[in-house]
């Protein structure tokens, strides 16, 4: 049962490696957006530190959104998505595998590079650890929810903008909890509640969204 999923995961990772610019654009976007903020609002370190959690989180979710359009559209165009519907495996599991690959290619690099940007915004060590932890729990949610939007806009013109309109409102809860967790540490409080809720949300998204995405793919390919 796991061999087909493994084959799919491997395929998506190999494709990403053969075309690294796709993944690098997302990271580049994240870095540039965050780097622009100090230029816009001035170099006061204390002020930057207060803004940092929100800035980093908003930049991360915009970067993830930027990459969503390509999640299914390449497979849709060349017909491999159609063949995927004929694979004798539950479509939800195949979708989940694709989303996992998407997270490895886009979400994980964001988590890994975030400490560097956090230092730039004057976050302290314990806040940076919390930021990474929150992003580690939060970016999979972004990929999972975003997949629904990517599937619903398959084959539509101007799909990228439509994804933003569909998905950004749904990104509010992870944004609030994720940025809130770092804020809590900054003010000396416990971030336990934020992280627990974020974790619960990830587990829920892990179970619920692949089926919604699979249904959307089926409808769009009908």
């Amino acid at each position, binding site marked *: 049962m796991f*061999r087909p999923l493994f084959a799919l995961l491997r395929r998506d990772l*190999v494709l990403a490696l053969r075309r690294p610019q796709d993944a690098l654009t997302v990271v580049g976007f994240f870095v540039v957006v965050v780097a622009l903020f100090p230029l816009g609002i001035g170099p006061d370190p204390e002020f930057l530190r207060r803004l940092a959690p929100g800035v980093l989180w908003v930049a991360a979710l915009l970067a993830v959104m930027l990459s969503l359009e390509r999640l299914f559209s390449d497979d849709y165009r060349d017909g*491999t998505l159609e*063949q995927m519907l004929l694979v004798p495996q539950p479509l939800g599991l195949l979708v989940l595998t694709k989303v996992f690959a998407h997270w490895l290619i886009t979400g994980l690099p964001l988590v890994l590079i975030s400490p560097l940007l956090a230092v730039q915004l004057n976050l302290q060590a314990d806040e940076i650890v919390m930021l990474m932890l929150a992003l580690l729990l939060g970016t999979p949610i972004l990929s999972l929810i975003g997949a629904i939007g990517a599937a619903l806009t398959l084959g539509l013109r101007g799909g990228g903008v439509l994804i933003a309109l569909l998905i950004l409102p749904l990104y509010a809860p992870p944004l609030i909890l994720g940025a809130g967790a770092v804020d809590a540490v900054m003010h000396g409080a416990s971030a336990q509640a934020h992280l627990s809720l974020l974790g619960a949300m990830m587990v829920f998204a892990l179970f619920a969204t692949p089926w919604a995405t699979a249904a959307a793919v089926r409808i769009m390919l009908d």
Partner: protein
Amino acid sequence: MADREFRAVDLAAERGDRRLFEHLDFTLSPGQLLQVSGRNGCGKTSLLRILSGLSRPAAGQVYWGDEPVQSIDGGTGSCLGYLGHPNALKEDLTAEENILIAGGLAGGRPSHEAVLSMLASLGLAGYEDLPVRFLSQGQKRRVALARLLLQAKPLLILDEPYAALDVQVIDVLRSAIEAHLSRKGMIVITTHQVVDIDGDCHNLRLG
């Protein structure tokens, strides 16, 4: 190979508000080929997509044996292979990788030698290690056919398999089709060319 009949009962398809066809019935037994013909836009591709379970019919039902195709364990892909207009190849992967990955997705593990000999029989020897984007349209079609033939499904649904193929490969494909029929496989095919195939062939005219 196949031990069941493939039946369509009272099928109808719509595109927008237009009825493409209705009250379509046929039965395909193991070893038979059904050629679907008709002018452009009469619903050949729609019919093939319905038969393969990718689209839902406006009315009617498709059966694999006594089971409706939607309720087959593992989906329609476990009994049929479908080749549509797009070749479903990844441009950045080589021909061999494309076939191996498709095989892996289907749950099998096609051997390296089997893939090479299938590619060679379709005239692609020497092109195995080239990314597919460097191949011509006809060569891509051949890779897609090689992938389909290697999966060895009892029922093959082929939408214009001859498109962009040159004469020699048409011959190879014809003998592959005949071999599939003689192994008690079933085939549903649309084509504009007249290709005479030895075997139990039936014709279905739409529109």
